[in-house]
């Protein structure tokens, strides 16, 4: 980050210049999260011995999975220095479309998964066109589609609720449903998705280009990286993962309605998970594993608040907000980067 702001600007080798320090820094953040989680588990177990039961721990993981999928998608966008504020209604639309198809027409799980992914991709293309083609600032574009997609969700449901999801779906939301003993199937799905995204980001040309685009778009462009296409694909992938998350939501809750996604603050949760996992809002820095750990961290914190310490759930949004701020404040590079940016802008303005 520091490099990109100061020295690397005209240099056309973003991948090499950022890779090594980035990985070490992020490894540190991931280690930090794991240590913090162990501390939380320790304190919670002291306060309430049953906290360390397999049931509670399994639940912490499976309760995190919806957010895991959304934040994996969000990670692509944030790495490319964007943000998608419409993931909650994308999740919701996917959940109601797949939900009604499964409930009323017996759509099977695998086809449902494909349908959810397609719905998510189509809505992601909407965001991608606005940000990548029309060059709208991501906040404005996705704030607009947040409202559009949320409105469509109302239209699709017509006030009706999906509540008869076939057991073929809901069996996967159950903690005791396992293939590998002790590991819920839905957690395996989350781990597999994390591994896949991690591989794409680390080992494919596209993945490296996402980092380069977010780290310094101008340098990436001069280096011949198709910045617009990379940005476009990042939003499409974000939609895809939010769409899959909608199906995961169905397996977890067996229901969906006109406010699914929005009402449980999936926008906030996904961004929080990515930020806690070390993904920078300024782009170019972050990992899939971080986002996975971030979402589990959120779930663990909320479970600890509710189970071990009896904090009423009205405090949850405030708690998540504090965690976001802590995550950003605890990231010295994010702060320094921001301060430098401001300073540079000021210098430029005064020079004019």
């Amino acid at each position, binding site marked *: 980050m520091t490099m990109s702001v100061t020295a690397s600007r005209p240099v056309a080798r973003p991948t090499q210049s950022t890779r090594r320090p980035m990985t070490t820094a992020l490894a540190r953040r991931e280690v930090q999260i794991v240590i913090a989680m162990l501390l939380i588990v320790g304190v919670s177990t002291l306060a309430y011995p049953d906290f360390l039961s397999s049931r509670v721990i399994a639940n912490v993981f499976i309760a995190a999975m919806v957010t895991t999928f959304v934040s994996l998608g969000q990670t692509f966008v944030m790495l490319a220095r964007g943000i998608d504020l419409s993931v909650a209604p994308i999740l919701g639309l996917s959940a109601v479309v797949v939900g009604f198809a499964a409930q009323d027409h017996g759509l099977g799980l695998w086809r449902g998964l494909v349908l959810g992914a397609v719905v998510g991709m189509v809505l992601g293309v909407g965001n991608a066109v606005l940000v990548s083609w029309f060059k709208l600032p991501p906040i404005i574009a996705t704030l607009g589609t947040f409202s559009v997609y949320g409105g469509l969700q109302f239209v699709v449901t017509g006030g009706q609720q999906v509540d008869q999801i076939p057991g073929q779906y809901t069996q996967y*939301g159950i*903690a005791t449903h396992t293939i590998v003993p002790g590991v819920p199937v839905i957690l395996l799905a989350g781990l597999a998705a994390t591994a896949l995204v991690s591989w794409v980001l680390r080992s494919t040309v596209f993945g490296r280009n996402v980092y380069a685009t977010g780290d310094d778009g101008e340098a990436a462009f001069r280096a011949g990286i198709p910045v617009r296409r990379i940005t476009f694909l990042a939003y499409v992938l974000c939609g895809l993962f939010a769409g899959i998350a909608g199906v995961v939501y169905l397996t977890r*809750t067996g229901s969906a309605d006109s406010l699914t996604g929005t*009402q*449980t603050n999936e926008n*906030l949760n996904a961004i929080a998970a990515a930020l806690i996992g070390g993904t920078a809002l300024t782009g170019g820095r972050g990992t899939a594993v971080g986002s996975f750990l971030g979402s589990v961290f959120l779930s663990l914190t909320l479970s600890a608040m509710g*189970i071990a310490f009896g904090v009423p759930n009205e405090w949850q949004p405030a708690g998540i907000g504090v965690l976001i701020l802590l995550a950003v404040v605890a990231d010295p590079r994010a702060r320094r980067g921001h301060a430098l940016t401001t300073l540079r802008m000021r210098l430029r303005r005064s020079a004019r």
Partner: protein
Amino acid sequence: MSHHLNRAGVLAVAMAALGLAAAGCSSGSAASTTTSSSASGASAASASSTADSPACDASATGGGVKIASGKPITVAIVPKLLGLPVFEANVKGAKQVASSLNVTVDYTASVKASGADQAQVIQGLVNSNNPPDVIAYSANDPTSIVPALQAAKAKGIKVIGFDSDVTASARSYFIQDTSYEAMGKALIDAVVAKNGKTGSVAILSSTKDATVQNAWIDAMKSYMSSTYPDLKLAGIAYGQSNQATSQSQATNLINSHPDLKALIPIDGAAVPGALAAVKSQGLVGKLSVFGIGDPNPNRQYFADGSLTGLFLWDEVKQGQLIAYVARGAADGTMPAAVGTFVAGDIGTCTVGNSPAANTIIFSKPLEFTKENYLKYDF
């Protein structure tokens, strides 16, 4: 591209995300689209002070004024929002008896559960060229629609309420779903019948300010302390009328009270949420669930045995009563409180002054079981 993003900066993005989340949160709790029982009616405040009037009873003899047909009238039924199965069932019931009462039923509402939107719908009815003779509402909140109802009254339109009330002075009659005490007693009796007189139970409600739910909670608490002192209330959690939130709250209740014997979800979203939690934790058969809600969203849980008891009332018959009371109100044949009237097959109903003025208690709690849930479609 990078330039204006730099300017927007970290904080702006974070704040936008937070603001968006907050907006989602508040609009969410306003539109609690669950059952008619997820109400915030106004009538419950004085519930425990005096005994409620008896509910309508088909077997009661004696009777009172018999509501009969008359000149043709139109009744506009305006529930909290469109599309909710319980309200559809109300309308279906009203239409079943409409022709015998010479009543035309007009069903209209806003698409969102919002007091302001509902006020607009009612004002639109009042101002229309062809206003209805009677407006029957189920209010989203106790105050928002009061001015519109008063405008209706001033124009000679009779106003009656059902399910969720407003200030009593703004309407002629209110049909309360069921007696709060009777509902609290029915739930606790069901828990005791299944699990015995000892142990601990937990309640999952909608929101902290939901008047009807709070009246049920008070009724359960006082019945437990007076009749089953060894039955302990381990905790109360709030699912915000959202199934996913209800599920995570129920999971927390279960995990923070390992000795819990029964979970009592008392709102339309809380019941399937609690059941999903019990199922997800692998506790079907070990933890009983007794709730207040409509049977349709819970069919799978009746079938697999995780739902041990569910209470509500017959929404279709309640719709029939709406038509009868509308007819009586339009013709001025309704008795003054305290008095009785006969509403067809529903039987003898009482107009009483408890919990609020001119209140008709529709029904005793109706229990849905594995055996009978298929008979009801709401």
